[in-house]
């Protein structure tokens, strides 16, 4: 009986144009939580998809409980006791929770193999209980919040009575309380002897929950270490392959006088932001902190004209700004990088050139009518160089770029108008460590140029590391403004949870 429940040896997997896995390795011991870490593109999800049968390995061996096997597909994997909670949810919101849990493997009865609904709901109730969720299995999945749906997804995998469980970014949509619930489940599974693979970017979680950590880089296996021997810095160094002495760039901006003022800004929705007042100075970075539901994004969308407000004023350099839609905000020199670039940021099927120029086309006209393609191309090249955007050409479709590069393209779009106020909503979400640093440098540079930067973020480190002042919101109201140098996790959290 092998020491390892599952081993993957010398796995090679290529896609047209790129070698995703280059002799990758993984060894899972039963009853342990094994973290798998690496930057985006390191190959973590690919390796897991090979394990789960979604991809076929080009080369390599899979040894399960001492025996060499091949997995033909997800159903085969499930039958063998390997379960996976995917990073991207595939819920069927219109159907009940019970149906979602047993999709594809409904319990049947009788010779006609009709679905045994009673058994299904009974089993579903049991499964939900096992993971300490008290949802009604008859309820529509769509009635749950996203984090709850993710918990159901986890329940689904756990219900499959697995011996190996793969969790791919399981906490990405969960609240702090729910993360705790997840950890309880994980601990119970660990005690039952399940081998758990835990993929996450969240260092603190990894260090807390895992026994061993495997790090991958560029599809290659870098090494495995016991979690207690690791620190965040060590992990980052090994993930990135070089020393990152500072996560945040030195800031050379000198905040000047107050230029942007918001007074008593209130949403038409009484449960959203209300009576918000704050100001931003020239060349300052104002961080915006808050918990889920604090209405930070809603506030910024309101300021930008994407949402309606009933009262309140916005002034820049003393002049009041009337903003009813994004175009008004843009004309007044405000730019906004939205939270979800794929939903409201990038024009996916269009080229980089189109994405960069779309908000500033008025500036590149011949005779007031015809687009000056040459000038637009110059603009694009200028930005590609200035922000180090990695792309084969300006005609490449933006959707084929990595998240970090997409974000840079969006920033270029706004820079083309030379805005005075730059609102950034979670600017480094979904971006790997290396690219994050580049974005931080760009943000710092914006402030240095004298622009007023407002940055919403859910990452404490980012807020404290980048902001001159931090505004904290809770339940739609501003609960406090903390000076950057005085900010600590504790005092920010205290303000963020004031009304909870």
């Amino acid at each position: 009986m092998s020491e390892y429940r599952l081993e993957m040896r010398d796995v090679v997997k290529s896609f047209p144009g790129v070698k995703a896995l280059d002799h990758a390795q993984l060894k899972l011991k039963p009853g342990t939580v094994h973290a798998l870490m690496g930057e985006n593109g390191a190959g973590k999800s690919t390796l897991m998809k090979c394990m789960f049968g979604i991809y076929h390995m080009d080369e390599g061996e899979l040894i399960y409980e001492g025996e060499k096997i091949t997995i033909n597909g997800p159903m085969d994997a499930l039958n063998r006791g390997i379960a996976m909670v995917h990073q991207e949810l595939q819920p069927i919101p219109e159907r009940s929770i019970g149906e979602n849990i047993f999709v594809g493997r409904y319990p049947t009865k009788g010779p006609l193999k009709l679905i045994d609904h009673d058994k299904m709901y009974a089993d579903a109730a049991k499964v939900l209980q096992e993971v300490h969720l008290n949802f009604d299995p008859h309820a529509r999945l769509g009635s749950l919040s996203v984090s709850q749906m993710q918990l159901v997804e986890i329940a689904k995998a756990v219900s499959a009575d697995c011996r190996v469980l793969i969790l791919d970014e399981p906490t990405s949509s969960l609240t702090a309380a729910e993360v705790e619930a997840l950890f309880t489940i994980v601990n119970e599974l660990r005690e039952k002897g399940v081998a758990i693979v835990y993929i996450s970017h969240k260092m603190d979680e990894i260090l807390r929950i895992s026994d061993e950590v495997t790090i991958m880089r560029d599809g290659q296996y870098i090494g495995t270490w016991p979690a207690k021997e690791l620190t965040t810095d060590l992990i980052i160094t090994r993930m990135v392959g070089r020393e990152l002495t500072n996560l945040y760039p030195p800031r050379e901006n000198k905040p000047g006088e107050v230029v942007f003022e918001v007074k008593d800004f209130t949403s038409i929705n009484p449960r959203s932001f209300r009576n918000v007042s704050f100001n931003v100075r020239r060349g300052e970075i104002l961080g915006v902190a808050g918990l889920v539901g604090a209405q930070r994004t809603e506030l910024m969308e309101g300021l930008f004209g994407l949402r309606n407000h009933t009262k309140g004023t916005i002034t820049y350099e003393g002049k009041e700004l009337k903003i009813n839609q994004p175009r008004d905000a843009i004309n007044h020199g405000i730019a906004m990088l939205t939270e979800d670039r794929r939903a409201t940021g990038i024009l996916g099927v269009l080229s980089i050139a189109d994405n960069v120029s779309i908000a500033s086309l008025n500036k590149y006209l011949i005779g007031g009518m015809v687009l000056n393609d040459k000038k637009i191309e110059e603009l694009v090249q200028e930005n590609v160089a200035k922000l180090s955007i990695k792309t084969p050409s300006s005609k490449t479709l933006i959707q084929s770029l990595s998240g970090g590069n997409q974000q840079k393209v969006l920033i270029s779009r706004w820079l083309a108008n030379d805005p005075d106020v730059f609102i950034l909503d979670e600017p480094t979400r979904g971006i790997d460590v290396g690219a994050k640093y580049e974005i931080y440098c760009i943000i710092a540079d914006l402030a240095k140029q004298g622009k007023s930067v407002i940055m919403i973020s859910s990452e404490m480190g980012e807020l404290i590391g980048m902001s001159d002042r931090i505004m904290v919101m809770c339940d739609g109201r501003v609960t406090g403004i903390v000076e950057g140098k005085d900010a600590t996790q504790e005092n920010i959290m205290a303000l963020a949870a004031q009304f909870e």
Partner: protein
Amino acid sequence: MKAKKIDIKKFVSNNAIIILVFILMMITGFSTKNFFSADNFKNLLANMSPRFILACGVSGCLITKGTDLSAGRQAGLAACLSAMMLQKLDYSARVLTWLPSIPWPVVLLIVMVIMGCIGAINGCVIAFLKVPPFIATLGMQTIVYGACQIITNNQPLGGFEDSYLVVGRGVILSIIPYLAIFAVIIGLYFWFLYNKTRHGKYMYAIGGNENAAQVAGVNVVATLIRIYLLAGMMYGMAGFLIGTKAGGASTATGFGYELEAIAACTIGGVSANGGVGKVSGILIGVLVFEVLKICLQFLGVDPAYTFIAQGVVIIVAVALDLRKYLAKK
């Protein structure tokens, strides 16, 4: 070797209909007389031209993830209006007996303006009232048809002035119909509009991601209204040309033209999923569909079967487009 295999498969699936029709054309050409003749080519161009103009109009709607089911009936109304204003002064069944003789360019302009207004109404309903384009234009389709019936009193219209008839029948260099000249001008205009103007960029942006376009400051409402307005004007011109080509117009004119136009656009790469589409593609799509029709006609295929076969091609075009969309996911 493997890479090449995938390439061929992809090529075939992307251009299946074009390949199919090409094969059909070869079969027809070699098994019938006069297929590859100047006369037939002239007919092809004549048939294509108003359809192409109509398709250009619809393309803007498709690119912005909408549709325009009123295209055919609008063209029909345009044909009837043009007919009423261009009947011979001494024609016994002249409808607008009080109307003096108006030069056809003026009539064309009037008709385009009227249809443009109808298009603008479509645009407003879709952009302001946020009614889904399918429903809005379906409603407009019935309204326009009803209006046409009222205006023409359900009587077919004929007896056109010679100057009008010449537009539809005239040829230069004995092979290029005047109709084709209209098509070329419109084609060039649309190419310019889609590639070299802000409106074009905004249109693609809205089609690509309407929410993102809004955030980027694009005036979505204004752009959509312009698109449907322009489409209306194109239906106007198409109807005007269809009337003269046929030498007559009635409430039946234009029936179903939008389905063919949408299919042609889809064949030509204007994905119903928005954000993409080129004028060259529209041209190819229209060409393919017209060639299909001519082939079936030349082969002597029973008209009922032709009708069904055309319908099948339309479904295949949409299915292929759907496949492309799903394959990406």
